């Protein structure tokens, strides 16, 4: 009579090495259409930069500090604040056309939620690639991997962006000013250095 297998024998039985074929549960990704950055000016002196407020969670307050930085440190740059015509969930041709007609560069912000970060990244890519305006997107640091994923799938992984600490919502004027004067938590570089490099040919150096 055969003795029953011991737990040790069972555990090491070749019967459990049988290979099984199973199907892959993952869906089909969209085709990625590669895009390119638009040409950049050598400097921002005398240029007009649109600061595009995505209308979410005090974004405009951070952009006001960016505007104040330019006024203090690069007074030859003309900045124009504009809020999206609708919520960030909508493509905004009216705003993009105004930027193209009257602006030389754009800063879009702030991407600081799971919907608005993809939206800000996408709008920045639209302004850059469909309207030919050099653009930097501003996000908070928690969304860096979201932004990487969105820009990659949009065909422009090199889309220019800078990150500030999370949160922006509820922060005081002084705290937001410190964000702008401080460092990007992801790269360690000064935020405004990244913004300016992202909008000029300094990007290529």
């Amino acid at each position: 009579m055969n003795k029953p297998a011991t737990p040790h024998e069972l555990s090491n039985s070749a019967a459990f090495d049988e290979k099984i074929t199973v199907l892959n549960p993952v869906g089909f990704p969209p085709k990625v259409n590669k895009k390119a950055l638009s040409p950049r000016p050598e400097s921002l002196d005398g240029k007009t930069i649109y600061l595009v407020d995505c209308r979410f969670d005090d974004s405009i307050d951070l952009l006001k500090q960016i505007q104040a930085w330019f006024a203090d440190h690069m007074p030859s740059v003309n900045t124009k604040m504009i809020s999206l015509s609708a919520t960030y969930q909508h493509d905004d041709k009216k705003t993009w056309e105004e930027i193209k007609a009257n602006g030389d560069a754009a800063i879009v912000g702030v991407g600081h939620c799971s919907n608005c970060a993809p939206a800000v990244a996408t709008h920045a890519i639209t302004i850059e690639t469909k309207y030919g305006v050099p653009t930097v997107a501003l996000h908070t640091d928690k969304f860096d991997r979201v932004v990487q994923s969105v820009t990659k799938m949009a065909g422009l992984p090199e889309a220019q962006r800078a990150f500030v600490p999370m949160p922006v919502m509820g922060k005081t004027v002084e705290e937001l000013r410190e964000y702008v004067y401080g460092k990007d938590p992801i790269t360690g570089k000064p935020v405004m250095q990244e913004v300016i490099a992202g909008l000029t040919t300094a990007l290529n150096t």
Partner: protein
Amino acid sequence: MSEHVSTAEFERTTPRLVEPDTEENLQRHFHENGWTDYLPIVLPTEKRVADMLAHTSRKPDEIVGRMAPTEFRVAWEYTVEKVAVNAVMAGAKPEYFPVILALAASGVSARGSTTSSSAAMVVVNGPIRKEIKMNWGIGAMGPYNHANATIGRAYGLLSQNLQGGSEPGVSFMGSQGNGYTYNNVTFAENEEASPWEPLHVQKGFKPTDSTVSIFYGCRSTTFCLGLREKYWREHVRDMLAGIDGNSTPCLLLDPLTAQQFIDRGGFDTKAKLIRFIHETAEMPAGRYWDLQLVQNYVYPWATFGQEPMASWLKAKDDELIQHFPEKDINVVVVGGEANAYWRIMGAKYRKTVSVDEWR
């Protein structure tokens, strides 16, 4: 939606099969790739998937739909077979497949990425409930029925896998997560014990149609036992005050509670009860507009002139506004009459999809 999202083309770059391996290694492989909910899955062998596919008349390579974790993220596309793979993984029986296909066809992800950590809620109506022996009685919203449990789980798995993932920090940003996400609160409406018309009939379907309805949010939940004679109106008002400003109330009533609403308030139709809920949920305008969620998601529409929000914006700070539009409020009857418990889920209705089209 941006043009590049809505006009995407798709390439069939995802392989059909996984490299053959032992059961143990495959379970680990699925977990490590983020294809599971971290519970063991039923491995989707070709035989199991074929058995699942036998319960729909649709072809395996037919496109079912597209899904993305948020707007402004490009959607991924999927076929009937891909949905079947995920249905097998969840442990669903083949006879549940038309319900699961209907959920997949909705295009509404159960793994949406919102920092608020939303979850889906699924209500099944019509004859399919009895055909596949779903639960609409005692324990209907809990782990007490195979169909309820596995259909809900399948909806979650297919959402995460067919939309390109639900990876924390990348494609899922829910700051705290949501426990309802495990099975997406999937149940059948207790049509038989309900004194009113079922949900799907309210949404324009016939009683004999089988459907799935999807709600999304499921963050705020308030709860009560019955309706007391003296202060029942005030108690309902208190419950509604606990529903978040970016959701709408969906009442989940045990049949005993449904009857109490008729006894107390004469609400012999769902419409009358919904009207009462709309009129009862009031808040001073100043306090309403100071809610962060309202500032983020309602205020922009108000400034664009969308009603009724635009009118609320003109209200004085202490003026009471009825901030849940009547058309957005829903009532579902579920439960086994063990007691007159009921709850209000803060969840927005998204859509109702025919199950019969996927048989």
